[in-house]
């Protein structure tokens, strides 16, 4: 499947509307630019986890970011994530993601044998060169099929 990615990661009003809808979030701030501006905001703000949509602007679309770490998609789990917001994002912002270090370690899992854990650090920089969000993303690969319970 072809994936074409523009440079930068644009924060867009229509995408915010779609993303908020996929979270069943009817907060008018995300859907109504007039309401957002009336509340004193520059435009509609992005929900806290909106940077997940950067997958549309990277080769991560086909899982290759995961594959580049040598992971098997069938046994990869998202362990968690930590966001630190310097400021909220608004439609009209254009971000650049800077990937930082990856820390990996191995842990004995309770249910799926040995687990490989990857902590991936990154930050997003806005159109003015300021860091707006810092992220730590944790991905796990289990030794095999994980049974719940």
């Amino acid at each position, binding site marked *: 499947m072809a994936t074409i990615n523009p440079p930068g990661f644009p924060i867009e009003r229509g995408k915010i509307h779609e993303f908020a809808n996929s*979270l069943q979030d009817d907060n008018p701030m995300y859907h109504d630019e007039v309401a957002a501006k009336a509340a004193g905001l520059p435009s509609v703000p992005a929900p806290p986890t909106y940077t997940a949509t950067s997958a549309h602007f990277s080769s991560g679309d086909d899982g290759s970011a995961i594959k580049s770490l040598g992971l098997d998609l069938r046994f990869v789990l*998202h362990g968690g994530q*930590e966001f630190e917001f310097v400021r909220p994002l608004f439609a009209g912002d254009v971000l650049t993601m800077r990937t930082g270090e990856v820390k990996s370690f191995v842990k004995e899992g309770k249910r799926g044998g040995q687990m490989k854990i990857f902590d991936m650090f990154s930050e997003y920089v806005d159109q003015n060169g300021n860091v707006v969000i810092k992220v730590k993303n944790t991905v796990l690969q289990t030794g095999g099929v994980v049974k719940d319970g």
Partner: protein
Amino acid sequence: MADSAFDKIKEGDEYSFVVKNFNRTQFVKYAGAGGDFNPIHHDQTFAESAGLPTVFGMGMLTSGMLARVLTDWFGATSVKKYGFRFKTRLWPGDDVTFKGVATKVYSEGGIKHVDLDLTAVNQKGEVLIESNATCRPWKP
């Protein structure tokens, strides 16, 4: 709305909502919106090849919904820190309660801050995700 929540907040205050009967269409809707096309979340054949009974929801769908506790309560621009750890997977048919508790109310740099513990729990009482967050009023 948001500022008045900060005025009234006390340690121990709670906010919650329930989303009933998650379905595969919601997973696909989030895949399109968020850009997570890992087939484990939409492709039954692929899920079975990984030994699973069916597809399961993205963690980021659960965490995105859990963040609504913060933004419904304190406003869309209020989140300063949001961290979460996934514990159990979200399956089609699940009913999930999303809940936050204010654990600490304090002032930092003259601005009121609230620390919170959050969870999403399914109909069996299993924790899908646990989270810590900090909110504060934000002005442009």
